[in-house]
């Protein structure tokens, strides 16, 4: 499968769906195409800003070094965890067979 990622103006919906392991039919692809492009157009407004001379940043807030001490804390009990999953046996969450 080929990405057309170089062409940022148009989202290759079927390719992105493939990466996300989503199966979309033709109609869904068309409908998402329109919706995603609208969303992108909206976000693209940000490129109208003049950012000349502004340092790129990974974060909107200038907070750094938020750490926790290396201490063990209790988690969830297994019954709760398994109850939250769509399928399970006594110990594990079950998923469709993973094939490499």
């Amino acid at each position, binding site marked *: 499968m080929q990405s057309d990622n170089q062409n940022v103006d148009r989202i290759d919906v079927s390719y992105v769906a493939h990466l996300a392991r989503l199966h979309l039919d033709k109609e869904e692809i068309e409908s998402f195409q329109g919706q995603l492009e609208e969303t992108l157009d909206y976000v693209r407004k940000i490129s109208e800003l003049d950012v000349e001379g502004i340092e790129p940043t990974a974060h909107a807030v200038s907070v750094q070094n938020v750490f926790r001490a290396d201490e063990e804390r209790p988690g969830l009990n297994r019954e709760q965890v398994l109850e939250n999953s769509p399928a399970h*046996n006594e110990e*594990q969450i079950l998923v469709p067979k993973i094939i490499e």
Partner: protein
Amino acid sequence: MNYLVSIGLEVHVQLRTVSKMFCGCATGFGAPPNTHVCPVCLGYPGTLPVMNQDAIHYTVVAGLLLGSNISDYSKFDRKSYFYPDMPKNYQISQYDRPLCDGGSVDIEIDGLQKQIGITRIHLEEDVGKSTHFSGKSGVDFNRAGIPLMEIVTEPDITSADEAMSFLVALKQIMLYGEVSGCNLEEGNMRCDVNCSVRPETQSRLGTKTEIKNMNTFKGVHAALLYEIDRQVQALESGEQILQETRRWDPDAGITIQMRVKESEHDYRYFPEPDLMPVVLDSDKIEEWRAQLPELPRERRTRFVEQYGLPDYDAGILVEDKALADYYEEAAKQSANPKAISNWMMTEMLRLLSERGLELGDIAMKPESLAGLVKLTDSNTINSSTAREVFGILFAEGGDPAHIVKEKGLAQVGDSDLLDKLVKQAILDNPRSVEDYRSGKKAAAQFLVGQVMRLTKGKANPKLVQDLLRTKLDG
């Protein structure tokens, strides 16, 4: 045609934190499936990760030990991919601003020193573990979120043997730095192997394949021997090498194609908005640098200088940090550090390997070994008794002086008694005496043996020999 081999490794080292990278779940090995999990490491909506500060510290220590540059600004990114062992559908990793850049590991190969370059060291979270049943797979998320340091090398490695030496050296450094338990059986060190070959006339690297998720050093070695040969054969017969991921099948002894590798940007890395950057000031880094442990290489040199050990012996001792620590502990309490080393290099290592034990399993304390050396040096016991006492100490521990006293093992140094026994041996063995006097000097050894037998092996053989000579020659 000759071929050049280029191998690069991506080694995942599990850090020795007690809690996971971004939540407080325990990291202990062997717990029942899905009992070390919480909303954070299960990727429940609305949860937020918080960094474990010790994971950052250990990664920086590893970087300092490998001579890396420590980034003053580092950040985390999301690596998106979809796989059932990854509950969030992205892995928190580091993309363009890893904690450490550069560095190297020195290896020795066929007596020659070689330096293997380190590209970078970044920190990421481990994923869950899946087991396969018929028609279904089961996932255990205990491992998901455990901090993993990924050490990426330059493609400087040129053979399976070099890859092996590199991994052994790296493990040794990680153990000395106390950043990881490096327990291979528990999956503490896992490695992806990138390998390419090219004709020696070609300067650009050949197309590489990646062998995923190797968890033994022997496996890496065997897989590389196979893969190098496979690639050379393919090129020889005019085939193209595909850039692909392969899996090592240890039973069949071959690598098998897995999937055509998705190109890097398909992971769609982007900055992790839930985590703030890590900014390390140089004071902090220097403080950590000042606390770095002595590395095996430096320790070896010091052992030679400080304790007068042969370089070879020092090399063996420092190979295993626990062994070197034990040695130092005993040597500090002894006037004869060379003898301590001799015991460890021979009896200790022999008994450990014969009985499949680790140093930590035995009851014998370093001070007991120092005590044993003292008893030998003061001629309280002879060397064969010393070996016997060593065996007792190894099995049961205890105080060697006490053992010698209790079991009546002290050397017979009473020369009146020995004199009597020597005379008796001469009387009992006229034939040997005759042999000796007619020039068969070896007959003296037989007579020494007889006296030793009369003392149940507790006499000083040298003393017996002298007494016999005086009597026979006189």
